[in-house]
């Protein structure tokens, strides 16, 4: 990883004359994550950011769509125009039906080599990070992961990508000055979902993949959707009830499940609880877990340390329950109760249950 200096930046801010070869790279691209007929919402969030960056650069926004042929993928292309893309680059091929590193890397590399974007953004999903790491190495360029802010440095027109480091204790701003494209991944829900505009036209550029199934070494044997297993859908949940070390014992985490059930909410937890095995890793909220933006986030027994905070501080309303009156979480929550979560949680569950019964009777 980039060595993070603790006293001074490793390099000063320098005005860089861009190599003419690199100056030929123009345009802000977003890799649109489209699989099994649906597009991951992070793609639209990134198009929103791309539009802002492109406007600052006086450049165009390109959306890259790879997938299997059909109506769904063509629909996705039209959607990219509604979310602000000027050009949609499409490669449709049966071998792209389910994500595999090899054919996707070939396809995206081909498009980048041919059309030369200056910036390439991907969602920091398992797909985006897998693909992003391969592409950056193939192209021998810079990739900044998990960015929370993207801006254009006016001095040199390059992308300034800000991201947390050391688990979120510090932020650093990273630039890729002498290589193109400048790549960055961004987690779902970190950027705002832009307006879905009215249908508009854009340029559709279709390319072929040129890879046959027989030559691809990795095969997809099966896809097991999460509905068939008990998996969390935290990233886009509207209400989340979350627990931390203040719950003291694994049995107490049941109080979180109880409250969540009454509210129809998702359940989250802090990293120490995941590492201790109280809940599955997909429920981790925080810098190395999921970023969430629910309408309501209830945090019980959570201190509010930065590593967790960065994953949930954009929630609309945060209710914090903690025994320690000086807990950091009270610095940014909306409402705070200083008290024993093991007593407050069941009281909340009862209160919501009674409220629900009353609301139903009132019709």
């Amino acid at each position: 990883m980039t060595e993070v200096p603790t006293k001074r930046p490793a390099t000063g801010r320098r005005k860089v004359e861009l190599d003419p070869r690199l100056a030929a790279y123009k345009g802000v691209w977003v890799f649109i994550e489209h699989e099994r007929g649906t597009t991951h919402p992070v793609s639209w969030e990134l198009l929103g950011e791309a539009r802002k960056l492109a406007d600052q650069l006086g450049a165009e926004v390109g959306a890259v769509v790879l997938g299997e042929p059909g109506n769904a993928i063509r629909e996705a292309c039209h959607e990219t125009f509604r979310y602000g893309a000027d050009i949609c680059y499409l490669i449709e091929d049966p071998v792209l039906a389910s994500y595999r590193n090899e054919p996707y890397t070939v396809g995206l590399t081909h498009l980048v080599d041919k059309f030369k974007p200056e910036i390439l953004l991907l969602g920091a999903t398992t797909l985006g990070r897998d693909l992003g790491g391969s592409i950056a190495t193939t192209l021998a360029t810079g990739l900044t992961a998990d960015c929370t802010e993207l801006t254009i440095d006016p001095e040199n027109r390059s992308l300034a990508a800000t991201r947390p480091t050391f688990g979120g204790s510090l932020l650093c701003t990273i630039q890729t000055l002498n290589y193109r494209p400048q790549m960055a991944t961004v987690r779902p829900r970190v950027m705002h979902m832009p307006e879905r505009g009215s249908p508009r036209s854009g340029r559709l550029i279709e390319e072929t993949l040129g890879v046959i199934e027989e030559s691809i070494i990795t095969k997809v044997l099966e896809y097991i959707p999460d509905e068939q297993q008990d998996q969390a859908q935290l990233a886009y949940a509207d209400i989340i009830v979350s627990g931390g070390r203040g719950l003291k014992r694994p049995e107490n985490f049941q109080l979180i499940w109880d409250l969540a059930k009454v509210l129809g909410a998702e359940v989250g937890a802090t990293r120490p609880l995941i590492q201790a095995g109280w809940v599955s890793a997909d429920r981790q909220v925080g810098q190395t877990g999921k970023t969430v933006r629910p309408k309501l986030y209830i945090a019980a027994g959570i201190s509010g340390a930065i590593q967790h905070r960065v994953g949930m501080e954009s929630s609309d309303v945060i209710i914090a329950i903690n025994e320690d009156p000086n807990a950091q979480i009270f610095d940014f929550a909306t409402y705070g109760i200083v008290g024993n979560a093991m007593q407050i949680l069941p009281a909340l569950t009862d209160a919501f249950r009674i409220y629900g019964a009353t609301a139903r009777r009132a019709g």
Partner: protein
Amino acid sequence: MHIVVCIKQVPDSAQIRVHPVSNTIMRQGVPAIVNPYDLFALEEALRLKDRYGGRVTVLCMGPSQADAALRKALSFGADEAILLSDRAFAGSDTLATSYALAAAIQRIHVDMPVDLVFAGKQTIDGDTAQVGPGIAKRLNLQLLTYVSKIDALDLDRKEIVIHRRAEGGVQVLKTRLPCLVTVLEGINEMRFATMDDMFRAARHPLEVWDKVAAGIEDLSKIGLKGSPTVVAKVFAPHPKARKAERIEVHGDAPKDLVATLLTKLFTHHPQLEREIAARLA
């Protein structure tokens, strides 16, 4: 069977604090640990060794004090440990790091063919998850990331079947060896090292490779020179100034606290009340 496990020694980022005045990282007293995600990778490799026989080599790129991480890996049962260390690696970003590690693995492969390369999904200091994919690309290995389960391994046919976490589901993938696997936390439970293991690990000779020993010839690909990304600035996060409204009632009875909370919540956030009412209905 020969598995190379890449590990990294990292500061325990959960314990990192920022000095409130100078805005710099306070490193003193923060313990150096093996990147926790890499321990899952090591354990997975050791389980395969238990089952199929063979050897596990642990590779770590870092300063000289990273030898502690390698000793820890040896104490769990790794057979060989190599520390890849050279001043020339200083300032490496993920591209330069994957270049150096790939070169070292290539050198290891010459001595004893490598069937699998394992790593954790990411580090807790860099958190990029980029080095694993970088190594795979450079060595032309099939890349399997976010692996939650190794379903089957056929050493004769050189095939592996794994479960890979995708958004919304799990992919069951089959590929050929050699390949590179990054594993998810929770894929297994780490074994314990006995005191004997730890003593043996302390006495085990560690190989230390500099850039020459690793077979690195192109110096423009390592260290700062080989790093396309540069850090423009480092700063402490600016916390949002929004202190919580404390719910306090006389007597502090949970029932009363909660009642007051709900009243305030629904009064000030009517849309949220409607949302909740709809869910409770």
